[in-house]
Structures are given as structure tokens and as C-alpha cells.
């Protein structure tokens, strides 16, 4: 198989420009292709630790230039020493599904006073913060997306809240499938419960991306790709994580 004269395509973006349902389409597409690749005995894409680190650094530098707030964290544990993280605060127009226990019998304090220069804002709905961590898994030789979401007081969203927050289209599509790729795991570094997009299909998805060729391209010279970005742009939007198209443009511009 020749890999020359190929250009990476961010399938998610491509389909996003055609339809308003990018992820559903692309995930279906991927699952189909992935299973075919698997049946045909195609190997998965092996993302080396070195490539992961290089990809992560490139992602960070683009993120910094477009203010996307990704951060790189280094830790000394095993052979892979960095992970990416990003926080995103959203008003989901949902309220927490857990019951607020009224164990708070503390009477309102009179000793603290209000003042006229403070704008009394109307009660705002509970905000929700999504936190995404991208780590390298040496056993899968693939990146792994961990995520969690919490209300403003630090209380985690239940998985039900989380699914309810997704758009109707995804909910429909994922009703049967959601457990096939989301599991709960302890964060390898922080040792707190996180959800994880299971990496078992990631290698196949990346193998597919490598095979993708932009037939519209007039200049098919050499490949500039960032597998990490390609993969993230595809799976991220399912869990509110959007990867702006600037990443793709910047990667191309690096030529």
C-alpha cells in the first residue's frame, strides 16, 4: 500500500460542511469501515509515544495561537509523561438531577451586610464544566479521551445528566451504542473517576484516516497530518468537545 500523495482529511469537518449531523454520520461510517478493515485483516494504526508527544505539542501550539485553552501537563509516571487537558464551561439549561438535601440548617447570617454597589443578578442557572483529558495508552498504542463534567459546586454530573445534555440527534443515535464506547475509569494520574471513550476502536479509526484521500486536492504532495487532531475532531463533538477547523488549516499551513 502506498501512502504517498495522500492528504489527511478531517472527516468530521468534511461531513460537517455537508450535513448538520456530522458525528452521527461519521461515526456510523467509521464503525462500518472499521469493521470491514478488521475483517479484511487490516492492521490498526500504531501511534507511537513519540508521535503522540509531537502531535500533542503541535496541538498545544495551535491552541495557544487560537486561544483554545488546551494545556499540557507533565507528570513523572511510567514512560509517557504528558497529557492534554481542557475545560469548557457551559450553561446547559439543565438543573442538577440530584436532590439538594436541606441539611443546611444554618440560619441566614445577619452579621454580613449587602451593599448598594453590588448588582443583584437574577438567579443564574447552574453552570456545568466539562473537563477533557487526552492521554496516551501504551497498551492500545492510541490516544484515549477521558472526560468528566461537574456542576459549579464540584458535584459530578451523573451519566444520565450527561446524556440528557447531548443534542437529541446524538441521543437517538447513541441510545443503543453509548455503552459500547463509554466506560468509567479511574484517571491514571489524578485517581478520580472519569469517563473514558474506550480506545479499542481508536487504532482502526486512525488506520482509516490514514487511508483517506482528498480527491479534490490539486496538490497531493506529501502528507501533513496530526493523527491526534484528526481523531479528536471526530470523537470529541459527541461529548461537547469541538475542535475548530483552524487546527486543520494550521496543520496544512505548517508545510
Amino acid at each position, binding site marked *: 500500500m502506498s501512502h504517498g500523495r495522500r492528504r489527511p482529511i478531517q472527516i468530521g469537518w468534511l461531513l460537517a460542511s455537508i450535513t448538520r449531523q456530522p458525528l452521527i454520520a461519521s461515526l456510523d461510517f467509521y464503525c462500518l469501515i472499521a469493521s470491514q478493515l478488521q475483517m479484511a485483516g487490516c492492521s490498526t494504526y500504531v501511534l507511537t509515544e513519540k508521535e503522540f508527544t509531537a502531535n500533542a505539542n503541535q496541538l498545544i501550539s495551535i491552541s495557544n495561537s487560537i486561544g483554545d485553552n488546551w494545556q499540557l501537563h507533565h507528570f513523572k509516571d511510567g514512560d509517557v509523561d504528558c497529557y492534554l487537558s481542557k475545560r469548557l*464551561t457551559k450553561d446547559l439549561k439543565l438543573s442538577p438531577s440530584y436532590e439538594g438535601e436541606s441539611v443546611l440548617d444554618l440560619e441566614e447570617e445577619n452579621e454580613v451586610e449587602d451593599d448598594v*454597589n453590588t*448588582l443583584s443578578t437574577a438567579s443564574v442557572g447552574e453552570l456545568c464544566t466539562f473537563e477533557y483529558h487526552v492521554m496516551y495508552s501504551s497498551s492500545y498504542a492510541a490516544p484515549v479521551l477521558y472526560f468528566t463534567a461537574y456542576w459549579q459546586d464540584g*458535584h459530578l454530573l451523573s451519566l444520565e445528566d450527561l446524556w440528557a445534555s447531548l443534542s437529541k440527534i446524538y441521543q437517538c443515535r447513541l441510545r*443503543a451504542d453509548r455503552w459500547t464506547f463509554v466506560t468509567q475509569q479511574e484517571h491514571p494520574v489524578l485517581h*478520580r473517576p472519569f469517563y473514558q471513550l474506550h480506545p479499542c476502536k481508536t487504532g482502526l479509526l486512525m488506520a482509516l484516516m490514514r487511508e483517506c484521500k482528498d480527491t479534490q486536492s490539486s496538490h497531493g504532495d506529501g502528507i501533513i497530518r496530526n493523527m491526534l487532531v484528526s481523531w479528536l475532531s471526530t470523537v470529541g463533538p459527541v461529548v461537547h468537545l469541538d475542535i475548530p477547523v483552524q487546527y486543520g488549516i494550521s496543520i496544512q499551513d505548517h508545510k
Partner: protein
Amino acid sequence: MNTSVKSQLQFVPYNSALDPGFWHQLSQKKLDVYGLDEELKAITGFYTNGDADSLPSRVNLDFTAFNKNASIPPRCYCCNGFIKNTNTVDGFKSCDKKQLLQQQADQIWSDITSGKAIEDPSLLSKLLLLTFADLKKYHYYYWFAFPALCYPCHVDTITTPSQIDEVFTEKQIAGLLASFDEVCLPKQIGYFLVSEDVDDTLRVLHLSQFDQLHNSGKKIMLGFCDPCTLKTNPGWPLRNFLALAANQWSSKLGDEITVICLRDRFKDGKRNVSHSILLKLRFVDAQSVTECPKCVGWEKNERQKLGPRMVNLSANMDPIRLAESAVDLNLKLMRWRLLPELNLEKISTTRCLLLGAGTLGCNVARCLLGWGVRTVTLVDNATISYSNPVRQSLFVFEDSLHGGKPKAETAAAALCKIFPGVKARGICLSIAMPGHSVSDSIKDQVQKDVRQLESLIDDHDVIFLLMDTRESRWLPTVIGAAKQKIVISAALGFDTYLVVRHGVKKRQLTDSSSTDTSIPSVIPGDKLGCYFCNDVVAPGDCAKSRTSNVVDIVNGYAAADTSAKDEHLTKDFSAPLGLVPHQANSWFLVKISQSDAIKFSIRQMYSMLTAPRKEQFTIIEAYEKDGFDFLLSAFNKPKYLEDLTGLTKLHEETMDEEIWGFTDDEDD
């Protein structure tokens, strides 16, 4: 454009925003470092001016808040302060909030008057956090304050705030940003000065350059990174900044003070500051004060009252709750992947009674845990012997010392140790057996035991018969059938096993006189037999006759057996799975090919328990009619059951060879 109105300037307060990791860290600090220490400890929060419209301004604290040199995320600005963690809820309530806040105000005021805050403007952003952590319940009480000096007490807006792009040209804004990125961004400084050069370019300068700027006669504007997104009001950081300006530069700023509230966000990868606002302000009474001005800043709670908040994190942090949810999630995973119709709630609320806590009982109990069952009661009257732990997976060597611990209680305790979310109970109880005569001296005890067994069966949904003898299964079989419970019987031999789900009879049988002897394709559940139904020998004292149905012998197949059994149970609750095999038996001999290894068969209700066709339910009816007296007869008279059910007659009518021949055929 700008209408000239005078109104008092109002500031938009912060909201606190916490990360789960913050609570994890606080718990750890309390346990490992703070102990009973209630002194103030330094913590670091941060705010951003990059929020999308309509998001309220927030000070965030995450798991790095306790770090000495906490790094702040990019494009965020630090808000340092202190945490006071009280030891009791009373300490939390009674602590002097006014004084706590005043301490911080004094510090800010001294930093302003000494000029220290000019050198390090981050001293203007402060936070105070009062907490009480109930680590047993994982309840956290907390109350934030973002101290702000009420000085000058009165600030008027001369004109309504305008958007930055209404006042400055695109080029000027670009210059402002370039200059900001150079001066403020790398060090994440949230307060700055802006000067307008002769060629209209805007330049960002450090606060310490004020005098230099002033001397050069340039117009000076104040600028700060504004976490607020409202078009009409500035955010909280401006309060202490104005206090600094009024105290230090009041005379030099002139009557009209211009403030740039810089809001700096990225949308779709493009930087945008056009939603920044410009304020024209006048200090109404900025007379110099020597004493620290009044300070405000306690956060309102979710009811919009000045008061503390509480968050219950037991579901996120209590290891027991975490284990429970992880087990459930695992099962849900299985349901979604393999058995979408599986009713997990029904399984988890099913109460299981395990009669026998030996090899079978231990393994069935563990498998039930795996299936999410939360109520398990074990019954056994034996103690753990030296040979038990290797096969009986809930026991260890120590349990067999000093005569051995009671099996049922020890097994229940082990279950709780394995999974604290389970309600496990162990009961030491003997089960009376037919053919084992009951003397008058123990009659009362036996009657009491039978009553206890009856009430246990009443209180459970599924009864597992996991004893080591055939005849000990008889009594619970009868009671279970009479009470219409699901009864699952398992027996284990050296190289064979048998699992039967007993039929549950209907009260009225519509077709009881049917004499059709052909093998039906479907046998309704109420016509399925039980462990004893097809037997032609009534249960008796096998220990006396040394027959081969003593189970629980050396074998390693309990797990295979028990999983077949649990499958029975789960299938009972998930009708959509289709036909449930009624009975599974298997041989573990090598000569039998893999595909033949497990044989599912169906026992139709015939003989012993529910009696031959003409006298169906003989035994159940006798039990229901005569109760303990009937049982006593069965226990005491060896031939009683065979006589009652007509087996004696059957034996007389049939050649023994034929019977055995028939049995052999069935076993093929």
C-alpha cells in the same frame, strides 16, 4: 449615541466555581496536613475574561488550588486568598465572618496605601473561603467571600457604557491587543494602564508606570481583565482597582476617569474583544480616608441569600458508593451491549435465600453479587472445617481454626467485605429431612426451625437449594412450591451437575385430566416439575443407605455450575430471551465432546412432589392442609411419602429392570 446620564455604578459579583478535585484535595489536606488546625491557609483561584455571552463571572478553584506555586490556565488571572477549614459545624456557624473579611480588607488596604499593589496588582484580587468538611458523610459546607473595598463609596457613570469598537478604531484596538499581549499576557496580569499616544495608538503599561505617564502629560485610562459579560456593568475586580486609583492617583486622574473593561474571547478560533466595554466614571466622594474603608463580598447562596452552601459528594467520593455505581455501570454495559431487555432493577431488588453455604452457596453468592443482586441471606448449620476454604470461596484458613466459625455468618460477613453495598445475612439453621425421624425431645426445636424456614422463604423472592444431600432439599421444595416462589436447585457430583428451576404451579389447573403421553413441544411453567418430580424413589436417609447422591465432593466445577444457575435466575427475569431451559445437567468426563457437555432438558411435573397425574399436588395439598403434622409424618415414617403419592403402588406394578433401563436411556 451615549446619553449623558448620571447613575451610581454597580459591580457584578463573582460566583464561586469548584472542581471535584478541589474537594478531594481539601479532604486529603484535612486528614494529612491540617488535622485540627483551623488557621488560614493560602489558596489560589483564577478567573477568566474569555467567557461567552450570558455566562456569569466566576472564580474557579481546582485541585491545584492548594499548591504553593499553582499555575493558572492560559488567559486566566489569579485570585489569591485563604481558606479557613473549621473542625465542627458549630465552628463554621459561630466563626466571626465580619472579622474574617475585615482582616482581608485590612491587608488589601495596606497593600494599596503602601503602593505594594501597584508593583503587584494581583494583590487586589482576593478570596476567602470558609469550609467545614464532614468527611464521614462527604458533606462540605462552604462560603466564599471576594473582599471588595467600598471606596470610593459613590462612583457615578457619566455616560452609559459603550462598546469598545464604538470608541476606538479597528487599528487602535489591534494596537491595544498587541501591547496587552506583550505586557500583561505572559505574566497573567489582570490590571493595567492604557495611554493614547499622539498618533492615536493605544499602549498598555504596567501600573508602576503611572507617574512616568502622568509627567509626560498623556491621557491615562485604567484597564482590567473583566470576567463579566454584561454590556451594562463591570465585574468585581474593578472595585479594588478603583480603590487603588482613588487612593493613589485621585488628583492626577482628573474628573472623568475612563476604564476599559477588557473582555477577550475566542470564537471559532478567532480572537474577539469587541464586546469589551468602556466606562466614563466620576468619583463623587473620594476624600482621602486614613482608616480602612468598609468591605463587602460574601457570596450569596443558591437561594440568593447571603449564606453558606452545602454540597453532598458522597456519590462522587465515598468509596462504597463508588463501588456500587461501578458494579452497576458494568452491568449496564453488559445490558447495552448484549441484553438490552435485561431488567437490572428487578434483579437488584430480588431477595435471594441461599440454603447451604458450602461450595455451592459460596459460589452462587459471589455470582449473585456480580449480577447486581443486593440482598442475600445464607442458611447453614455447619461450621467451617479445614478442608473447606480451598473450595468454598468465601472462607479462609483462619475461619477453620478452633473448631471453625459458623458457615452462614462467616460467608455473609465475607460478602460484605467483598462488596459493602450488599445486604447479607447469615443464619444458623437446621433443615429437617424426610426419613430422619424426629424424637419427641427435639420436636419443639424442629417445629421452630420449620417455622423459621417458612418465614425466611416468605421474605425472599428466589430460593436456592444448595445443600449437600438430596433429602434436605425436600422440605424447602415443598414450602417453596406451596408459597409459589422461584426455587432453583443445584446439585454437584464428582463429574456431573444438575440445575433445575422448579415449576411454579397454578392454583387452578385447567387441563389436569389430560392423559396425552406424547412429548409436548412446549410445557407451560405451571406444569414444569421440581427436583423430585421424576424420581421414583422418595427421599430418605441417604447417609444410612450410602447412596451416591452425597454431593460436595472434590470437584473444581462449582463455578461452571453456579454460573449456569445464575443464568437461570437472570433469564427468569428477562422473558424476551425466549425459551429458558428448565434443567441443565452436565458431565465433566473427557470422553464427552464439548457440544454435548451441557444438556438442557425439561422435567414435566409427574411424580413425587406433585404426585402422579390423577392426584396432582398431593403433597403440596397435604402440606397446606396439615402443616407441621404432615411434615412430621414425612420425617418419621420412611415409607410415608411413597405410600401417599402412589409410588409404592408404582413399584409394585413395575419390574425393577424396566425402571433402571429407562433411567439409563435418559442419561445418554
